[in-house]
Structures are given as C-alpha cells and as structure tokens.
C-alpha cells in the first residue's frame, strides 16, 4: 500500500499545509499548462505509476520542457510509459505536470519506524535529490524520537546542525518538517519520504517545497481510510485472486496470499509465517501462490479461503500441498475439514480434476483432521500421502516436488484415467 508521486502526494501534503511544488494532474488543459510554463519557466512531466516505484529519474522517465510543444510531446511519451522496478514491470496511466523550482539546496527527508532504535526515526540530509543509499553515513542524520511526543523542531535543528547544513535552510525546515509527523502518525503510515525538498527563494526567504512524494501505509491500521483515497489506488497490483482473499482479512486467522507463478503447478495452502517463508523458498517456481493461513482460522473462513484458492489455482495444479509445522493452536481438524469440504465443493461445482494431495502437518486434533481429509480424498478417488510433524518439512516439500515432476511427465494422465476424467 504505497503512493508515489505528487498527483496524490500534493493532496496529502496539503492536509498538513506542507509547502509543495505547483502540480497539475493529467486532466490539465492546454491553457493551464501554458500558464504553468509562463509562471515557472520550466515544467517537469512525470508518469503516474500506482504503488511504490523508485528511480524513475534514472530510467529517463522524467520529462522536462519549457514550451508547450515539448510538454505535449513528453506527455505523449510518458503517458503510458513502462518501468521495470525490480521484478515488477509497471505501467503508467497518466502524467503530472509539475512547475520547476529553481533552488540552490535540495534536502532529503524521511520518517520510518527504525528497527535499530525500535522507535520512529527521521532521516535527513541537505545533500538531497540523490539516491539516499549512495550517500556516506556521515552525510546523513538518523534521529530516533519518542512516538508519544513526536518529531519536534529541535530534532530537526540539532540534526541539521550536526550535519553542518547551510544556516539559511535550517529555520524554514525547522518550521515545516515537524508537520510531516502529523501526516505520518495520524494516517497510519509506515514510511514517508520527500526527495527532494527544494529550498525555493521567494525573494524574501527560503521555502522548502516538496517536489516528490512517497509513502507507505500500514494495512493493519485503518487510519488511512480517513484520506478517502480511491479504492483502486492500492488494489492495482493485487491479482483478482489476492483481492478476493483479502476480503476475508480478519484478525482471527491469517489470510495472506501472494501470486508466485501464474504457470505454477503446485498449490500449497501453507500454515504459519515460518512455513510460508520456507515452503515458498523451496518450492520456487513450481508454486502457484505463497500463502499463510495460520493463526487458527475458523472453519467458515478456511472453507471460503479454500474455495477461492481452488477456483483460481486447482485447474492448473498437479499437487495440492497442505503444509505447516507442528501447530500450536491451529485446530487441524477444523482446518482440514474446511479444506476437504472445499475440495469436495470444488469437484461438485467444476467437475473432478486429476490431483495428488501431499500433506505435512502436526498440531492439535491432528489424526482426527487427517482422517477427515483422508476420507474425503478416498471418496473423490484422489491419491495422497500425509506426513506427520516427525518428517522434516523440507523432505516433505521434496516429495511434493517429485510428485509434481511425475505428474508433468505423464502421471497426470494416469490419475485422470483412474479418476474417470475425460
């Protein structure tokens, strides 16, 4: 749940009256653009990506122009620009027009919850406008502060002093930066970054104008909903499957999912964050999804999760792999009953599917749960192997992968025949 860029950043900054550059959205008319050129002499054209996207400048994805013809050309170039951000290929939908801010000083500023200090911390430098990772540590000030009292003027002042920042930028920053704590703290943010803040001279004094914006929200904190941001701002990179599962997100029981490989052939409902980390790593590209359904989900929730998961992934799966460690409090009978019933429902709705089921699990009501699932699979004619918690989880994963390989090399047809599937 991230926002990058000034299209939405400007609205958030306005909430706390933090100064910012002049920004128009993709709907800007020719007259408005002309007016912007006249006022600022120079206009930056930036593609609008949803979610967290970094290093646009390095990728040539920021246009700069001083006349209408060039602005419109850049608009055309960048409106549907694509950008490879790590493993993700993202596509722009629109541009912003941002008035140029002539300035001598560029400042970097961010707030995050810092795990070294175990407190919120401000990171600041007057050597802004660059990738922060590239700066040596002595040019950065990282200042933790008390979350009960928040970011204060003296934190900013002391930090800039310690960095030897030009004296003329200190006062305007001290006056304005603490406002950002309100934005961070009141709307459930996990990270807020302004880079650069350009110190604009209005003829009388310097004003810190935010020229780019990035923030991330905590999905467990409903405070962001007060911002009334459009729904699609955060759901854009969720697949339909993820969106459907996310609707089941309640505090009783996990329902985290992440699509690993749309072409995967092992679907592994996984229980526990640790199992999620390990199973997904060892299954690699064989996995359709990564999931964590631990935390003792009630029957109804697990049954809904199963039905949705099977609807999306069973048709392409060779192996249904139910895996977790020795559960502490997740009731195996309830979860296996929910999965078994979900599988039966799926077969009733969509017809039988050639499948092999592998289970690795331990925990309360284990044998009862395994027996229920066994009976369900027997009644559906599905071959299976269940392993207890005294088998190494990694060995069980290897077994599931071996079954998958066999299925890919003709085993699927053997099961198909045995299950009377046309």
């Amino acid at each position, binding site marked *: 749940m*991230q926002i990058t860029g000034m299209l939405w950043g400007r609205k958030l900054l306005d909430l706390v009256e933090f100064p910012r550059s002049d920004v128009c959205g993709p709907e800007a008319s020719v007259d408005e653009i002309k007016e912007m050129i006249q006022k600022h002499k120079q206009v930056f054209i930036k593609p609008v990506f949803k979610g*967290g996207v970094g290093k646009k400048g390095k990728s040539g994805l920021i246009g700069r122009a001083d006349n209408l013809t060039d602005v419109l050309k850049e608009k055309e170039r960048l409106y549907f620009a694509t950008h490879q951000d790590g493993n*993700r290929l993202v596509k722009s939908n629109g541009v912003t027009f941002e008035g140029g801010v002539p300035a001598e000083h560029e400042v970097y500023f961010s707030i995050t*919850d810092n*795990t070294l200090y*175990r407190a919120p911390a401000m990171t600041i430098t007057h050597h802004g406008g660059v990738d922060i*990772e590239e700066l040596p540590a002595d040019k950065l000030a990282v200042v933790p502060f008390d979350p*009960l009292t928040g970011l204060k003027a003296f934190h900013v002042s002391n930090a800039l002093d310690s960095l030897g920042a030009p004296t003329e930028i200190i006062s305007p920053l001290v006056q304005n930066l603490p406002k950002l704590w309100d934005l961070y703290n009141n709307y*459930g943010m996990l990270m807020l970054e302004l880079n650069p803040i350009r110190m604009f001279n209005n003829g009388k004094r310097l004003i810190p104008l935010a020229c780019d914006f990035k923030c991330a929200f*905590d999905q*467990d*904190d409903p405070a962001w909903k007060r911002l009334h941001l459009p729904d699609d701002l955060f759901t854009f*990179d969720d697949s339909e499957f993820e969106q459907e599962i996310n609707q089941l997100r309640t*505090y*009783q029981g*996990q329902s*985290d999912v*992440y699509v*690993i490989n749309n072409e995967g052939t092992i679907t592994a409902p996984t229980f526990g*964050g*640790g*199992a*999620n*980390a*390990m199973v997904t*790593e*060892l299954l690699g590209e064989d996995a359709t999804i990564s999931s*964590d359904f631990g935390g003792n989900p*009630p029957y109804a929730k697990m049954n809904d999760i199963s039905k949705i998961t099977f609807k999306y992934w069973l048709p392409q799966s060779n192996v249904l792999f139910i895996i*977790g*460690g*020795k*559960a*502490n*409090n997740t009731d195996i009978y309830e979860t296996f009953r929910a999965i078994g*019933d979900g599988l039966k429902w799926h077969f*009733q709705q969509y*017809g039988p599917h050639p499948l092999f089921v592998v289970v690795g699990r331990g925990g309360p009501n284990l044998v*009862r749960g*395994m027996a229920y699932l*066994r009976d369900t*699979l*027997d*009644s559906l*004619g599905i*071959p*299976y*192997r269940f*392993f*207890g918690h*005294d088998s*190494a*989880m990694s*060995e069980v994963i290897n*077994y599931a992968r*071996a079954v998958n390989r*066999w299925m890919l090399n003709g085993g699927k047809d053997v099961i198909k025949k*045995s299950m*009377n*599937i046309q």
Partner: protein
Amino acid sequence: MHKEGVADFPYYVGINSLSELASKEDKVVVFNILGKESSAVTPVSHEYSGGNVVFGTGPGKSGKFLPTKKGKIPVYNSIKEGMAAGHEFNTAVVYLPPSGVKDGVAEAVRQNPKLKKVIVLTEKVSVKDSRIMRAICQTNGVDLFGGNCLGVADSWNHVRIGGALGGSHPDESLIKGSVAIFSNSGNFTTTIAVYLATAGWGTTTSVSSGKDVYIHYGPQEFIYALNNDDRSQAAVLYCEPGGYYEQGIESEKPIIACVVGRWKAKLTKSCGHAGSLSGSGDDAVAKENWFKDYFGVKDIYTPQNPVCSKKGALVTNIADIPEALTKVMELNGKKLDFEPRGDLSLKCWFGSNNGVALPKELDIQPVKAIEPYRGQIEALKQQVGAQINRETMKDASGASKMDPKTQVSQIHNVSILDASNQLFEENLVFALTHSYPSASGTAMANAVLNAYVNQHGQPSLAAATASREAGNSPNTVQVAAVSIIGKKKAQKAMDAAEALLDVFKLTDMNDPEKDFDHQSLVKGAAAHKDALLDAAADAGAAKVMDTCQSKGKSVFLDFLSDFAAEHKGHVSMGAVVAAVWATLAWPSLRSKKITKTTLVRLPWYGLIYSTMVGIAAPEDQHGADKFCGVKNDDLLGYSFTRTAFLALMGRDATEGELFEFQVLLGLIITNGPGTISAQGAKGAVSADGPEQPDHVQINKSLIGYLTHTGFAHGGNGYEAAAFLIDQFKDSDLKDPADIKHGVDLEKSAMDYAKWYSNYKKEQKGLGNLEYAKIPCVNHPIFKGKDVNLDPREEYVSKLFKDKGLYNVFLDFYHHLVESLFKAKVTKNVYCVNIDAVIAVILLKMMWSDYRKGAIKEENIEWASFMAFLFGRMIGCAGEIDDHTNRGKNMDTRTPASKCAYVG
C-alpha cells in the same frame, strides 16, 4: 525516555537471564481470557505451569470463571477490579482484538506498578499502536513481547506464559535440555524443539518473538540473557528478512542461525509475517552475511557441506538445525542432552494410491506413527466406510448431475456415454458401489442376480400378473411386484452382510479378489453362525456358490466354505449373496467411497433388480426350472444384460443386439436429480427419514421412482417408434440391420418432409398451433447452427459405426433432418436427438417380429417403456443410496412460503 534496565542497551531491557523469562515466580493476568483462542490455550498453560494465572478480564464478564484442571480462574471486568479483589501479578498476557491491544497494555501498566512483562498474542496490531505500547512500557520499565507471538516457555521451570507453545500437549515438545530457542515464527519455535529432540537436544527457554515490524524483545537482548543463563549452552535463532535486529550479534555461547526467505526480496507487500518485508539492506542475503561474518564461515551449512565454527553455523533449512547444532557443540566439547528420539526421515502416516500405479520412489508406504498418534490411528480402523455429513438433499445429489452445456449426465462422475459402454450388470453394481466390477466380479454378480430372476411361484409374480391383467402400464405392474420385496425378503442376506462386515472390518484385507489368509477369522467368527449357515443343505445356494467360485477368487466365499466346514453347517443362500456383494463393494468401502450401511443393504437392491427384470416377462415364461426357455442353472452363467433382453423380448439376443441393448440402457441411466423419476425416488427416501437409514425402505423408494414415471416420462419413447413404424410400414424393409435394405431413404425422407411442410402450412392456416411435431428432432440446447448435432447422438452413432452395426431407422432420421431443411420446413439442419437413438435401437430389435406379425404395436410400446424402467433403475438406485447416506429427514419438502396457490 526509558527506565534504566539491566544492561547498556539504548532502551529498557529488564530480563537479565533467560531463566527469568518464564519462571514459577511469574503471576499472570490474561486479557480477554474468555475469548475463543484464550479459553482454549490458557487452561493448558495454567495447568502446565502449575497454576500461574491469577485472574483474567472481560468487560461485563465479572463473576464468570475459566475452568481448568488446576481450578477455576476468576474473571473480572477490569484490571482495577481484579486488583481490588486482592490479586497480584507481574505479567500481562493480551488476547484482545487488535484495536483494543494498546488500551489493554496501557491499562495494565497504569493500574499495576509491579508489572514487569507484557506478552501480546494478537495478530495485526497496527505499527502505530505497537510503537505507542513500546513507549509506554519503556517509560515504565516493562518488557514487552510480541505482538503476533506465541509467548515464552521454559522446559526447566515447566512454565508457559502467553500463547500455545507446544500446543495442547506442551510436554511433547518442551523437553528439558541445554538449547535456548528464539524464533520469529511461533510455529517454528515448537517445530524446531521437536526437530532438536531427534538429534538428542532439549530446550531451556523458548521465545516466540513474533515478526511484526516491531519486535520488542529482540535477538540482542535474548543473547544477553542467554549469556547469563547457566542452563543454556547454545541457542537457535530463527530469523526472517526485514529489520536490523540480528545485525552485530555477539554471543559467548554457540548459535545456530537459521535464515529463511530469500524469495521475499521480490515482495512488494508482506505475505506471512507482517514485518518480513525487507528494505535494501535487511533482506535474507544480508542477514545470512551478518551471521557468516560473525561465525567466520564462508558458506551455509548443509549436510553435504557442513561448514561451521565454534561460534556457530548458518542454515537456511530448519531440518538442518539439529545436525548443525551437534557439529558445533562437538567443536565446543559439549555432549547431547539425551539419546536422539526418532529421526526426521519421511514417515507417511496416511497414504493411498486410490487405484493409481505410482512409480516406486513415490509409492511410500504408511508406517506406524509415533505415540500418541499411533494409538489414535489404530482406533480409526474401527470406523469403517465413508462418513458423510448429512445435508438437505432437495434437488441435490451426490450421485448424479447433468452438465447444462453438453446435456450429458453423469453418475458418480462417469458420463452416461461412457456408462453405455458398460454392461447392464456392471452399471447396476457401479451405481451402488461407485466402482466398476472386475470381470470375475461381474460374473459373480450375474450369478446372484440371475438366481432370483425366475419368479415362479412367487407372490411378486402373482401381483405383477394381476396388475398386468388389470390393464396397468409397465411401471404400475412393476410397482405391484416390487412392493412385495420388503425388507424381510432380504433380511437373511443383510444379516449375513452385517456378519461378514463384523468379521473382516478390522483386518488388513483391502481386495477380496486377492489372496488373504482368513483362517484365523474362521474360529473367531463363531458368533455369526446363525447369520451365515443353515442347518440343512440348500442345493440352490451350493449351485450359486459353485458358479461364483468357478468364476474367480472371493475371500468372502472362501471364508464361508471354511466357516461351514469348521462349524459343521451349510452356507445359506443369503450368505452367498452377501458374500458376492461384499466382494464387489469391499474395495469401495475400504476407500471410503461407500458407507457400511450401503454394503449391508446391497443384497436388498440386488433382489429388487432381479425381480424387476424377471417380472418383465409374462407369467407363462416363469417355469419351475426354466425362465423364458432357459434352464435355471444355465441362467446363472448368463450376462444379466442378456437376461434382461430375454425377459423383454422373449428371445435370446444376437451379439450385436446385446451391445445395442447395453447402450440403450446406459443412455437412460440418469438425467440428474431434477428428473421426475429421481425426484420420486428421493422423495420416498426423504419421507422414510434417512437420518435413521434402517428406516429407509429400498423397495418403497424404488416404487417412488416407478410411480414417477408414466406415459409422458419413460413411456414416451414409443412416440418415435410409432412415427418410424408409420414411415416404414409400407416398405419392404426386412432387416433394419442390413445396410442393403433396399429402401430409398432419401426419397422417403423428402416425401415426408414435403408432406409435413404442406401439413404444417395447412394447420397454421387453420389457426392450429398444436399441430403434430416430428418426434426426436431438434433440441433446445443444440440448435442455431447451420448444421446441428446432438453430441450424445453423434457419440452413439460413431460407436455403432465402429462396431459395424447399422440401423436403417437412424439413417432415415439423418436423411429426414436434411430433407426438412431442403424442403424449407426448418431454417437449418436440425439435430437428431438422443431420444431418437433410444427409439431406433428398440425398433430395430423388434422390427423382424413385428413384420412377421408375432408382436403388435402395443408390444413395442410396452417394451419401450419397460426398457426405460430397466435403464433408469440404475440411476435411481444410485440416487436412493446417495440420499439414504447423505440426506436429512423430510428434506425434499417445499416450504409453504414457496408454494403458490393458483385456484
């Protein structure tokens, strides 16, 4: 701002030694103690710890209590109220919903100056609340654990505080030893402890830290307390990406670090643990490097590459932890805590191939599980057959369905097109056992089915004859006969089935057609003598038994032979019938496809099958020793398909006819649970009350089916036959199977099409929209294309073509739909539908006799209806059995609110 703690941390840390983390001195209060999770977990913790929970809270729940084996834990509205009642505590455990967690922590800190530890179990606590809670606790000198953790446990102190470490039986996992565990994963805290035991290592203190963005009690302070704990000789740290908690760790004692989650580097949002989302410098690889640098190793430890130092080892698979620990401890001169308990090799507890031939390396056989699970699994053997949850089965079926797109129905997931490739008797067995019988199984089924076909001297035949003579339709005649086949008629065989079930249910015998040593069962089954043996010899039973045993192996029949010899009796006819049905159904019972109720009642179904086929032949065909001219003994060796043909046509079938007849019956099996016939059967079951399966009368349920057929449903097949007779009555057609029949089909079809065109116009001109329609052409689904085909008819046509079986009537139908188009009666070429196939098969069989005058049109109508009843009997038997096992009492009723009054 924080209170001064025990060491030089930049924040408050109050725990000096791991031995203090969960001790007997700790007194605990539990927030939301009566919540779902807490009320299950807290009693186990309380009992394991010797009673360490002093009270719990729940707003508005004052005066209630949580029962435990260590006494009742009182519940108060608030901490204040609990403390006012005189309770003292130093530890708070929080099970509140996420939005209430911060307030709970604040309440505990405010109300109790003696508070030293807070453990938050709740998942999905917001980061903001987490940082505020931390600040409150830091200011007041309280150690905070979690959220989203499972708390702490100590095997030495026998204390567990917070969540469910070790599950419902903590002693199984928390075995006293020398290794401390710190884990980001609650589940892995326990799983690692279990794994360690397989290498001979037990635990001291186990900490489930949680893996939210904030880990309040982190690895640094854990290692500090480890160094101060004399009991702990080493530690296992399980870490995931995200956060700098492990950076710069140094320990006086060896550490096995397990870092998992390299793949998470590509995540853009958390999946699994909320805090397991890395930035640029705290991903899994970075963490691995921190540990490698500290241990002074260059690689990850694996069994193939056992890289470690005295300081420790880095692993990325939790299964490698025990071995790595042993190796590191050897370098430190430390010995195992105890003899290794078990191992981590693959141990299959449950497995079935369900008929699939697996390659050897995948065909892992189940082994005996560790205790206490072994005992529990053994106890499961007492549960025989499928256990099906009952539900409302109105308009629903677990036996059949129709695909609305293809209009092809299925029974037990087998399409009727495929089922039509199976013999009548095979489908009769399949409908009830959900598995097709083997060749020898089929032969045995034929013997017991044919044994009861001849109804000579039976009241069922008398009833059928009386009904027939009274002018009733075939279904009504069947009703008269079937009503006589009440439960008592099959009771002996059902008692025998019950006895065989009791004798064999706890054995390892899964396939009765394979060798199995039953000798030890012969003596032990003496109590079933009355159910299985007769005092006097029954020649009929002996004959059926001999016939069956000559056809193939049956453990049940072999057992009966030896049982009769041992107990000096004679195998009863009921026992033979039960043994054959048990042979057919046992694999399905073992694989949980059917219930034991079904197995026991199969002989009753079989008896009705035989009766329905038998009384299709008129009374004069039932002699003392012959049926339709075939000797009773010879009949035992007949295919039941052949017997049904014999009963229906009064003559034996050719090989080609037998195949066509089998296809005809197969196509009729079912059209899903919505058909009137199925609804009749299901309603009859529902009315008897399937929740007590013994109450469901199978014969009455089949009567329900029979009464829900009639001249419009089942009897309408004759309409097409009549149409064809009309078309061919003036031709010289002698043999409909002869492709050189000499009839100009093209001309006949066109003549008819032209006539029909004129007729239609004429009738429309008269304003008659109820003009006669041509039967068996067109279909509401398979229409609209230039040339339309009913895929079911297409399938059967191809089947016959492949077998070299020609049918002039079907050929005529294909010409007819072309001609209707050419004559502009239809806008496109209609399909010939599946009902036509049924009609043409039947007419082909009877044409010769009809031509000779041996039979009349009403005989064709009778046979047509009766054939439908044979085929649909298969599907309805499946529905009846399904509803008996799955349905609820009176579940097919329609609520009054959904009924309409149209008077």
